[in-house]
């Protein structure tokens, strides 16, 4: 979209203000009409002890802990609002009291946001994206370029950091099928944003693809919003999410079809129907089992892939670990990667839950502060041990099995590389 003569504006995340002209843009951006020559300005710059990339549960906790240990922290997030995925999580959390069980994600986000905003040691850079890792021979610190949006314009900020914590989360997986680019096909994250953050109905008649926790919870939230959920299809032979979420859906009359997947979408400029198909034991489509379902919305809740591109660019050692969701950085017990001073926390170090992401963030925050030399090592190390045992107890249950395997593999690779 074009806003106030500026092309390629991502209007889905840009706040709307008074007196703006918003125009649609087809494929190419047209050249900006205004061609006056303004004198170039030098990029803004800042230097910090700990740069935290991503203001979701892991990043927020990391910021709080690092700042508590006297480190000067910069927290960068591409959205206008802090909290990451928490702000769309209107459901209550499971787990122990300590880890906010019984509290809704959106409430946790609000509390963390207030703590972060009140802390003088934390500087915030919202609506900003860390776009790359760069060489700067004039400094021993890590140098990053950050694209900072102000209104609909953007500028580059040079950020130099002694240590960095990547808490950028994950990207939603997409499926390949004819029609997957039509309006009406959403990722579950987008559906949650529309409903739970903006209060906008994504459609009226939904086919949900994926019966993991996200698929089940979002289906229930769609029902709560008065939207018809036709059915949930799941390619695996079993339901991946918690039984309690599945049971809730079934009580409302929404069937869950395992060993079923989406084959294609019918419609020319928007979703009019979807064709689902049954799968055999080898996950192959069974010919003749196709069924056409009338719907205007298809929601894909088919897993997440850790966002690791900046880590790759920094030369951090990485491995593909299926249980972690793909290519992830290996790290030590305190979340430090193979590049000293570079830490990870949350989904980008293996797909898991918000509750574990928060503890990983706490560990990374303290560990990074220790690395900067801003804190007393003994006291901080005790804190690390407390967080580590909390993390272990959270992962001890049956639903912690996958991340437990993922983290064991990360540990094995880590030791092999020492």
């Amino acid at each position, binding site marked *: 979209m074009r806003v106030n003569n*500026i*092309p*390629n504006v991502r209007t889905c995340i840009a706040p709307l203000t008074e007196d703006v002209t918003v125009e649609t843009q087809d*494929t*190419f*951006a*047209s*050249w*900006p009409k*205004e*061609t*006056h*020559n*303004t004198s*170039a300005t*030098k*990029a803004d710059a800042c230097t910090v002890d700990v740069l935290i990339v991503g203001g979701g549960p892991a990043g927020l906790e990391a910021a709080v802990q690092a700042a508590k240990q006297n480190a000067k922290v910069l927290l960068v997030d591409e959205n206008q609002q802090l909290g990451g995925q928490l702000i769309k999580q209107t459901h209550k959390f499971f787990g122990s009291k300590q880890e906010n069980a019984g509290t809704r994600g959106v409430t946790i986000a609000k509390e963390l946001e207030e703590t972060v905003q009140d802390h003088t040691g934390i500087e915030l850079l919202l609506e900003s994206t860390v*776009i*790359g*890792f*760069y*060489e*700067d*021979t004039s400094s021993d610190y890590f*140098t990053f*370029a950050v*694209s900072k949006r102000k209104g609909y*314009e*953007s500028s*580059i900020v*040079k950020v130099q950091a002694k240590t960095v914590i990547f808490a950028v989360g994950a990207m939603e997986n997409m499926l390949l099928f004819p029609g997957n680019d039509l309006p009406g096909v959403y990722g579950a994250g987008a559906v949650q944003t529309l409903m739970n953050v903006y209060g906008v109905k994504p459609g009226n008649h939904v086919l949900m693809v994926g019966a993991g926790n996200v698929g089940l919870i979002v289906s229930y939230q769609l029902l709560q919003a008065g939207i018809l959920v036709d059915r949930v299809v799941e390619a695996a032979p079993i339901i991946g999410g918690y039984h309690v979420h599945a049971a809730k859906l079934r009580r409302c009359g929404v069937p869950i079809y395992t060993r079923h997947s989406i084959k294609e979408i019918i419609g020319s400029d928007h979703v009019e129907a979807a064709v689902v198909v049954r799968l055999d034991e080898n996950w192959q489509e069974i010919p003749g089992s196709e069924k056409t379902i009338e719907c205007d919305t298809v929601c894909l809740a088919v897993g997440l892939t850790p966002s690791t591109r900046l880590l790759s660019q920094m030369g951090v050692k990485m491995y593909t670990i299926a249980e972690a969701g793909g290519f992830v950085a290996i790290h030590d017990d305190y979340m430090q990667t193979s590049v000293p001073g570079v830490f990870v926390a949350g989904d980008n170090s293996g797909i898991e839950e918000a509750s574990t992401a928060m503890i990983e963030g706490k560990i990374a925050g303290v560990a990074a502060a220790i690395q900067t030399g801003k804190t007393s090592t003994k006291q901080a190390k005790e804190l690390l041990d407390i967080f580590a045992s909390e993390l272990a107890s959270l992962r001890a249950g049956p639903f912690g099995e996958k991340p437990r395997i993922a983290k064991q593999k990360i540990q094995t690779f880590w030791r092999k590389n020492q």
Partner: protein
Amino acid sequence: MNEHADVVIIGGGVNGCAIAYYLSKLGMNVSVFERNYLGSGATGSCGAGIRQQWSTKENTELAIQSVHMFEELSDELGEDIEFSQGGYLIINHTEEELAQSKKNVKMQKTLGLDVSMVSVDEINDIVPVLDVNGMDSVGATFCPTDGHANPFKTTFAYAHAAEQLGANIHTHTLVKDIKTKNNQVSEVLTDKKSVKTRWVVDAAGAWSSQIAKMVGISIPNKPFRKEVLATERLEPLFKAMVISFKDGIYFSQQPEGNIVGGIPIPEQRSGFYELPTFSFIQHMSETLTRYAPALRDINMLRHWTGYYDVTPDARPILGEDSKVRGFVHCHGFSGHGFMLSPMVSRMLAEYISNDKESSVLKRLRLNRYEDEDIDMEQNVVG
């Protein structure tokens, strides 16, 4: 098992693959060894421009002949290399530069090039978005037959055509050593196999000196990291490549709409530095928006680095070595390897196959550096 090849080519960039093609066409049995993938070095990271406006006669001649070959190349190789001719617009900033341009244009015209001086008022007829005051321009030169092509597609087209003629191309194969017998190349050892041969072509780009060292030859080339960026897509508006020797900038609009260009950073140093620099972002955006202010709010999409293999006179080192028989130099292109590749590769193939050495080839041998006077190429950007 000991294999044999008439010629072993080290380096699977555009020149290595092109030489493989022309040699195969001349009936020779060729093996190419590339330690990474085809086009993984300078070829795949280059700005893709093809220019004939040079200050030295050798480069101009090679470039004119290369353009004639580029014009036919898609048909000859049977694959589209996306060659198009939108011209090169060279911006001049001082009277001194204008005088040099006039000299160059005169020389280039004697070689048959369609090139002309352009007044300040005519610049926007060729590229509308340029700010002549911002660029501090006093004039320009324009050659409409300059252009660009897709370096990956060109390299792959050469490689596929060479393979069809029987060439063996081995990617992900590292050359470990080259054996000689009585100052004559005899064998190439790789991490996978050994090949007996009487000819080795060093087309390893920035890593050429490591190959030359294997036979005891020292070459004066130095690797320099160069950076390129691509912006978001904009409506296709101009076809010419815009360059300035004073500012070192070059940029053009790709058929897909992205503006692609580069500029040297002030604190440039030789070495295998791989990371992009923050200095480049600052320098490139300052200069680019001075040239084309409309780009002010356009985001950069990608930024990558590659190496120029730079010689003391910014001209390539070509031909058989005078001390080690059978060792053929094909490196030191100083940022111009892609655009010169068709003609250079064909000449080297003809030399190896038929002992035919053109006068241009003679003048670009390594031993030219033993002379006191070397003709320095002035027209360098990036």
